[in-house]
């Protein structure tokens, strides 16, 4: 469904040229659960951004359902992100000035839906991560684990086909991290959602179907 073909990414600044990724071949199929591992600076986040259609490769191709992604304009890409993809970040990235419910509604704002439908979808999504009782709280009133669950609710509220998680447990203790991984596993198993997760934690990586290891921008398995 989502495929990287011989993808490379070079960052150019005035003086420096950094090869962030090189020769990456990767296929994300429906129902996949992938882990991306590697030391910091190995290109994990860049890979995730490419998969998330947030960035364009400098070499190779990104294909979604067999179609070249680079052909799309910004509006189409945004709609694709909105409908096909969900994001979870290491530091949660919730909007501090919005309540939990409003945060979860954000992806739905960019779809032609009525307020009532939006609200219902957001509440259902919060129910799926077990936070129904906290919908009117603000992010600062929640623990780290709860915040990350809000972030997951926000990522899945639009029923994406692929969930991209950038070190979702990185800022959490292992107990809470465990809970988050359990949620991701459940989403993958029960709803067939593809999950691509960047992680440092070998234990969590081993629970996935496949591990992609990166070193200096190259795939090493």
């Amino acid at each position, binding site marked *: 469904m989502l495929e990287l073909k011989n993808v490379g990414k070079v960052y150019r600044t005035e003086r420096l040229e950094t090869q962030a990724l090189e020769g990456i071949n990767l296929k994300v199929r429906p129902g996949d659960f992938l882990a991306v591992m590697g030391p910091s600076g190995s290109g994990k986040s860049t890979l995730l951004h490419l998969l998330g259609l947030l960035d364009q490769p400098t070499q190779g191709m990104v294909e979604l359902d067999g179609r070249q992604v680079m052909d799309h304009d910004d*509006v189409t890409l945004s*709609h694709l*992100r909105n409908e096909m*993809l969900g994001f979870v970040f290491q530091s949660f990235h919730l909007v501090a000035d919005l309540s939990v419910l409003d945060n979860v509604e954000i992806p739905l*704002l960019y779809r032609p839906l009525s307020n009532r439908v939006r609200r219902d979808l957001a509440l259902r999504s919060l129910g799926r991560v077990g936070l129904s009782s906290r919908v009117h709280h603000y992010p600062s009133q929640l623990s780290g684990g709860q915040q990350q669950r809000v972030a997951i609710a926000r990522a899945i509220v639009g029923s994406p086909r692929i969930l991209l998680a950038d070190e979702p447990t990185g800022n959490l203790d292992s107990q809470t991290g465990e809970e988050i991984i359990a949620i991701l596993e459940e989403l993958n198993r029960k709803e067939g959602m593809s999950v691509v997760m960047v992680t440092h934690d070998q234990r969590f990586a081993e629970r996935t179907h496949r591990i992609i290891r990166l070193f200096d921008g190259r795939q090493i398995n």
Partner: protein
Amino acid sequence: MIRHLIRLTWNRRRTYPLLIAEITISFLVVLVVVSSAATFLRRYRLPMGFDPRNVWAVTCDVNASGFFDERSQEEHERQLLLLREVRGLPEVAHASYVFSAPYGPHSSTTTLDKEKDLSVETNVAGDDALATLGLRLVEGRWFEPGDGQLNIEPIVIDQRMRRLVFRDGKAVGEEWAETNDERSRKHLVIGVLEAFRRGGELKEPLPYFFYRDHPEKASSLPLKTLVIRLRPGTPTAFEETLISRLRALAPAWSFTVEPLTEARRRHLQEMTTPLLIGGLLAGSLLLMVALGLVGVLWQTIIRRTHEIGIRRSLGATAGDIQRQIVGEVMVVTSLGLALGFALALQAPLLPPVRALGLHFYGLCVVLAAAGIYALNFLCAMYPSRLAAKVVPADALRYE
């Protein structure tokens, strides 16, 4: 989306109290300018009731005499002599004495209704003033030579006074009592004029009436202004001839001539200059506020790169982001305007605003608010474009 923006801005209201205060003050400044300009425009479009073209006002002064000094019988006769002389000149179509000239500095008023604090401006004019000033009668007649024999003082009123005193009833042929302190004098209304806005196009129109200048008796108020309607095409050089003819008859007097069109130009300049200066000041203040707003928004966007990145990753298009920033500015503007409305609502208690009329004032409020919205919309355009250009991957990488 709108609800989302309102909630977001409301939750962030503590971030921009100063911005809101600025918007409120700008709104009030614009409101003052708009309502002054609109008042002037409205006054300018009302009928004047006279025609200033080809009319000259000649001030005949007995050497620096006091304004309220009585004139001797000799001076009174000399005045009549001057009028006869002027009427005899071939360039002159009509001529008449008046107490206060159009656009001139002197006026006199009398009380119409003491309790309601209503005043009416009065003037004194001769039988030929109708033709000289090009007044427009809508009812009845103007003064005639025979009016000196009436045993009641005839007056000609304007439509404003007619509405105030007689409402919808008959006015011509009715009596009206002028009450000043203890004394009351009866007058007979013989005619109604369309209007007579002596103060000029931009002055507030007052109810008006004319007394007759009775040439057969020396008036207790000397009429110092001779208004003259010239035949079209009379050259301006005629002024020198006119003054020398007058001087030959009254060597000790001084004469000053001003064409009414010139007086009109002076009046418009005097009235619009303060408005122009006020407008320029307000414009500069607004420019300052606009620049400040752009600056603050710019900062906001730099600080919120992250939030923008997240929204982009969750599927917001560049256009969505731009609309969001503009929308937020509009919501903040609305908060400031709400405060401004609350203050503007107090204004109808002030006399100048009461004079405007509530409908009219309301229109000014709406116009001023629209102006502020438009200005802030323009100010939000550039920063919102910057926000839309934020590259999501960069925004998220920057942690």
